[in-house]
């Protein structure tokens, strides 16, 4: 994973895991790596990973089993709802940027098709 050095790392990792949960790379109910394991994989301070998991928990994406670690929540409806909300928010953000440079939605859609090769 590539990090921007001027944004809190725990946000960057939490965002990445959030997307992986929505994308299915982390399945519903799946166990997440331990704090040290993930720290080792990403080369970051374990304290940072503690913050990552706190953040994901507060976003409602994972839960703590007091004895055995962290798991993706198993509630499919809940994840689907959060995913829809994520899509909505990101699209609105993106659209407001694009509208600022005076590009119409039609033009934007054409551009998306062009880039995606359709």
């Amino acid at each position, binding site marked *: 994973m590539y990090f921007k050095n001027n*944004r*809190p790392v725990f946000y960057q990792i939490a965002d990445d895991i959030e997307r992986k949960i929505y994308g299915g790379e982390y399945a519903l109910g799946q166990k997440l790596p331990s704090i*040290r394991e993930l720290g*080792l994989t990403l*080369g970051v301070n*374990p304290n940072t990973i503690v913050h990552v998991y706190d953040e994901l928990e507060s976003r409602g994406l994972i839960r703590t089993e007091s004895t055995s670690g962290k798991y993706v929540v198993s509630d499919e409806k809940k994840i689907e709802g959060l995913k829809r909300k994520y899509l909505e928010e990101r699209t609105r953000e993106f659209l407001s940027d694009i509208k600022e440079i005076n590009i119409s939605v039609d033009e934007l859609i054409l551009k998306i098709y062009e880039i995606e090769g359709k």
Partner: protein
Amino acid sequence: MFEVKQLNKCYGNKIIFKNASFKAEYGNIVGLLGKNGVGKTTFFNCITGVCDSSILNADEIKHTRFSYMPRFEQGEWNDTISDLARLLPVISDGFDKEYFKQKTDEIFKGKNLQLKALSTGERVALEFIITLSRNAQVYLFDEPFANLDSHYREFIKRELISNYSDDKLFIISSHDIAELEMLFSHVAIIKDHGISGLYDCERIRESGDTVNEFFMRETI
């Protein structure tokens, strides 16, 4: 909490530290930053008693168990790695023989080399393994990346994360800020004969700076 109160140190007429203080919780990895010559190595030498200095709570610090990364001079060392494996546990209480064996085997592919046959980088890696094999509370690494290739750097980063625990404090002096800043929980900056309080690295990034940019600005 590890604390150094009112450290004073000079070399002849040259003042290095004037009432410098340092404070950090165990369970952190602290980067000790400073321009060349401000006293990073001297700080390590003072708190471990390698050089004389005046410290207000010297008695308290004396009871802290340190593991200070040694620096072997290049020379005619006939001893081998397995000689070290035998000797080090004798002079160092709680030395982790298994860890030492496992990691030196990993780095030297199981070969029992003489110390004089090691390259500079291999020597640094060995010094690093010795440091982590000791049973201590405060671990001091002075420029652990000096002369190391990317493989050894990765090895060192990995071992720092693997060996990190709530009851240990790692203090790392380094100029390789960009490479280490993801490992640091905090940084402290030595300047003007003093040591700054700890800065939380995530806080620094929150304000849109990299730790390196922050360091550059603080040490103009």
